[in-house]
């Protein structure tokens, strides 16, 4: 690209900085820095070149000066001893010097400043007069000659001294100036670099922080919060942020699909569960009916009545299983309302208070003050808690302690609800199955749907329920529910899904 094109690009880039990618911004910064370094480099090169030629001219002038001193020496000899040879020598030196000065003139003149040039010309002029006087030494009257000759000689040496001095001062001035300039410009470049790095790191860190927050939300499964982020990406990191929110959106969709697929998969479990659950009462009814018919004549009235009563009880048992099954599959509309967990926990505990008393289980409630409020279907959450409480009570046939605590994690903005018992615990190999529909350890007493329904309810609230257990020590259920701050959650929950 031509230099003019580059400059145009740079100007355009600086005017539209916001819309540039970080790579483009770095390129602009690097080009600007390179231009600055280039300008300074060029300046330094120029001035040192200047210094070099000045030094060269000083050398020449120094030679001229030395030659003048020699001439003055010869002049002195001539006057002291009236030695004509000395005069000849002087003339010779003078001519040589004159030739040297004339041949260097074209080189030296451009290097010298104005007073220096005048001095140089003056030196040539005086030298010419001096030499012509030296040639006419015998002709002119000794008195006049001596005086003029001396004064010309003096002028020669004083002017050349002065010129030399002047040039030396100029050189040291230039060098000093250059050193100051160099240090100052290095300092300025250093500061500009610091500012640029600060700018780029600030930019990166701001954007990385946004990314960090989003990734955390994704890892917590709060996809919809990330998915609603709509930014039109300008730079690489904003593109990455957009990719993350895109990913979150897809993950959310996938999670829904997986939930749906999970429901289908659990249909198999469900069917075999139904077979198990319904098999026993059906067999009971069948056997009673067969026995009733087979032994009809032998049975007394009371026995016949008992048979029918038992058959009725067995049909009731079937009805209850079918009802639970409907509960499990029904897509009930959630009725969300703003409330606090404390109330829900207290109502749920009140519902099982009789069970607690009978089983000699002590309750320990620890709920943090000023918990953020939640937007939930109160009866559903109560259902979950009652289910957990009953499970806990049944796990402590010889009594024990039930701990219920609620807290808040400001970082994830989730409320945490912990239900812990000191019961028999759950075996490791079945711990992963306890949320499966129709999985039960209670044989004829349970339907195996309680925890499965609870799981569905909590997931529908965009929360999470997990379990930890140690055989012989007890079981701990941990529920996480989003706090009300999150507007996105409230909206997302309107489209209620079956659990």
């Amino acid at each position, binding site marked *: 690209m031509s230099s003019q094109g580059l400059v145009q690009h740079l100007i355009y880039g600086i005017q539209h900085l916001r819309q540039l990618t970080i790579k483009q911004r770095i390129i602009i910064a690097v080009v600007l820095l390179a231009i600055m370094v280039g300008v300074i480099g060029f300046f330094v090169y120029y001035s040192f070149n200047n210094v070099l030629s000045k030094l060269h001219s000083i050398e020449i002038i120094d030679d001229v000066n030395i030659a003048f001193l020699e001439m003055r020496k010869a002049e002195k000899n001539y006057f002291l001893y009236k030695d004509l040879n000395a005069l000849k020598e002087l003339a010779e030196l003078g001519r040589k010097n004159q030739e040297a000065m004339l041949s260097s003139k074209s080189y030296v003149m451009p290097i010298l400043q104005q007073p220096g040039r005048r001095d140089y010309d003056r030196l040539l002029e005086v030298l010419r007069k001096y030499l012509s006087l030296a040639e006419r030494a015998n002709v002119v009257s000794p008195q006049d000659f001596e005086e003029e000759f001396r004064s010309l000689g003096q002028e020669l040496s004083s002017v050349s001294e002065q010129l030399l001095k002047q040039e030396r001062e100029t050189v040291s001035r230039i060098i000093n100036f250059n050193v100051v300039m160099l240090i100052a410009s290095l300092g300025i470049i250093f500061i500009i670099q610091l500012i640029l790095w600060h700018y780029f790191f600030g930019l990166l860190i701001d954007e990385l922080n946004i990314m960090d927050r989003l990734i955390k939300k994704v890892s917590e499964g709060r996809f919809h919060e990330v998915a609603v982020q709509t930014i039109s990406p300008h730079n690489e990191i904003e593109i990455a942020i957009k990719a993350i929110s895109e990913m979150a959106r897809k993950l959310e969709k996938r999670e829904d699909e997986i939930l749906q697929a999970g429901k289908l998969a659990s249909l198999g479990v469900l069917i075999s569960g139904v077979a198990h659950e319904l098999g026993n009462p059906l*067999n009971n009814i069948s056997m009673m009916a*067969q026995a009733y018919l*087979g032994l009809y004549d032998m049975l007394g009235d009371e026995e016949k009545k008992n048979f029918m009563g038992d058959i009725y009880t067995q049909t009731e048992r079937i009805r209850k299983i079918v009802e639970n099954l409907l509960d499990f599959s029904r897509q009930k509309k959630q009725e969300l309302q703003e409330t606090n967990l404390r109330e829900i926990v207290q109502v749920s505990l009140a519902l099982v208070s009789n069970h607690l008393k009978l089983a000699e289980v002590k309750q320990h409630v620890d709920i943090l003050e000023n918990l953020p409020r939640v937007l939930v279907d109160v009866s559903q959450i109560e259902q979950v808690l009652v289910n957990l409480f009953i499970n806990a009570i049944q796990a402590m046939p010889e009594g024990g302690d039930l701990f219920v605590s609620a807290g808040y994690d400001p970082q994830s903005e989730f409320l945490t609800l912990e239900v812990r018992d000191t019961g028999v615990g759950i075996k490791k190999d079945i711990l992963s199955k306890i949320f499966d529909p129709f999985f039960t350890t209670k044989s004829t007493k349970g339907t195996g749907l309680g925890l499965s329904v609870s799981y569905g309810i909590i997931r529908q609230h965009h929360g999470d329920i997990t379990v930890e257990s140690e055989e012989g020590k007890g079981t701990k259920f941990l529920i996480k529910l989003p706090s009300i701050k999150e507007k996105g959650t409230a909206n997302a929950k309107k489209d209620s899904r079956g659990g």
Partner: protein
Amino acid sequence: MPKKILVVDDEKIVCDMARLILQNEGYEVDTFTDSQLALKAIRERRYDLVVTDLKMENINGMDILREVNRLYPDAKVIMLTAYATLDATIEAIRERIYDFFPKPVKIEDLKKSVKKALGD
């Protein structure tokens, strides 16, 4: 001397009906809804026939079958099950099960099988 039969099933009604029907056929019948107690009874006295459910709360039917085989190799075991997998069935056959009845059980068939098992 009537032949002795033990019936074990979590469901009380199964036990009651089995007792009613088998006593009516002239057998001596003990029933248990707790498989642990049933196992204890098996260890204490010899039964000619054991009728057991496969899936029970404490000890399953397969364990009862093994214990009977170990203690009384000539005694017979009939198994009832609400939902038998092929694996469970094969395992039961290898353990020399006498007969196998899916629930709901047909009483006439059960009666016939019991009689055949006891050689009556």
